[in-house]
C-alpha cells in the first residue's frame, strides 16, 4: 500500500518532526501521562514494600479471573482500534465504522465490568478507607477507569464523525490520534493489572 495523499499534502511545518502535528501532540501528552502513572505506581511500590504492617494478598481480596477476562476485553478493543485505523488508512469507510463501534462496545464493557467490580468490593466491605491497599487500589484503578471513560466518550465522538464521513479521502489522522490514546490506556492497564492484581 502506498502512503495516502494526505501525508504528501502535509504542510511544510508538519514535516519537521517527521509526523503530523496531531500525532506529535498526542505523544507529548502521553509522555506526560507516563510520568503521571509512574507517580501512582511508584507510590504504590514504595508504600507496599516499604511498609511495616502486613499487606493483604491481592488474590484474597480481588477476583483475578474476572479482571483477567476484563483485561482480555481491553486488549481485544485495542485490536479493533488498530483494525479501524488500518481501515481508515486504506479509506475503507464501512470497516472503519464497524471497528470503531466494536471498540466503543469493548471499552464500555471494560468500564461496566470495573463498575460491577467496585460495587461488589464495596458490598464486601473493601473500601478506599480499608487501609493502604484499599486507598492505593481505588486511586490507581479509579484513575485508569477515568482514562478509559474519557477514551470511550472521545471514541463515541470519533465514531459519530466517522459516520458523517469526516475521515474519508485519506484524512485518517484523527483516528490514528485517538488510537494512540486508546492503546496507551491499554498499555497502562497491562502494567496495573500485573502490579495491583497479580503480584
Amino acid at each position: 500500500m502506498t502512503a495516502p495523499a494526505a501525508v504528501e499534502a502535509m504542510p511544510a511545518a508538519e514535516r519537521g518532526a517527521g509526523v503530523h502535528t496531531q500525532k506529535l501532540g498526542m505523544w507529548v501528552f502521553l509522555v506526560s501521562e507516563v510520568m503521571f502513572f509512574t507517580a501512582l505506581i511508584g507510590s504504590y511500590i514504595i508504600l507496599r514494600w516499604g511498609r511495616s504492617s502486613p499487606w493483604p494478598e491481592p488474590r484474597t481480596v480481588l477476583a483475578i479471573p474476572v479482571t483477567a477476562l476484563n483485561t482480555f476485553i481491553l486488549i481485544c478493543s485495542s485490536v479493533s482500534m488498530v483494525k479501524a485505523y488500518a481501515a481508515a488508512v486504506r479509506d475503507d469507510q464501512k470497516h472503519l465504522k464497524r471497528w470503531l463501534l466494536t471498540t466503543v462496545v469493548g471499552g464500555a464493557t471494560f468500564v461496566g465490568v470495573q463498575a460491577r467490580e467496585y460495587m461488589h468490593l464495596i458490598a464486601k466491605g473493601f473500601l478506599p478507607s480499608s487501609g493502604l491497599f484499599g486507598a492505593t487500589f481505588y486511586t490507581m484503578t479509579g484513575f485508569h477507569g477515568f482514562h478509559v471513560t474519557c477514551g470511550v466518550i472521545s471514541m463515541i465522538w470519533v465514531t459519530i464523525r466517522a459516520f458523517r464521513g469526516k475521515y474519508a479521502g485519506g484524512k485518517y489522522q484523527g483516528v490514528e490520534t485517538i488510537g494512540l490514546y486508546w492503546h496507551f490506556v491499554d498499555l497502562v492497564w497491562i502494567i496495573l493489572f500485573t502490579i495491583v492484581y497479580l503480584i
Partner: protein
Amino acid sequence: MEAAEHNAPNYVAVWAALAVLTMVELAVVYLGLPRRLTVISLIFLALWKALLVALYFMHLKFEPKRLLYVVLAPLPLALILVFTVIHGFRTP
C-alpha cells in the same frame, strides 16, 4: 513491500501473543512458584506485553527515530523519580 509492512503488521498475531501471555501470567500466579521468581516473571511478562502494544499497535516500530526519542525521553526520568523517592523513604 516495506510500505505494505508499514501499513499493516499482523495485528491478529500480536493479539494472539497478548492473549497467550495473559494466560501465562495467570498460570504463573496460580502455579505457586517461589515468591521472587513469580514477581520477576510477572514483571517480565507485563513489560513484554506493553512492548508489543507500543511497537505494533502504537506503530512505534515504524515511526521516525525523532519521535522514538520523544517517547523514550521520560523513561529514565520515571526511573529516577521512583528510585529517588525509594531512597528518600529508606533513609531515616
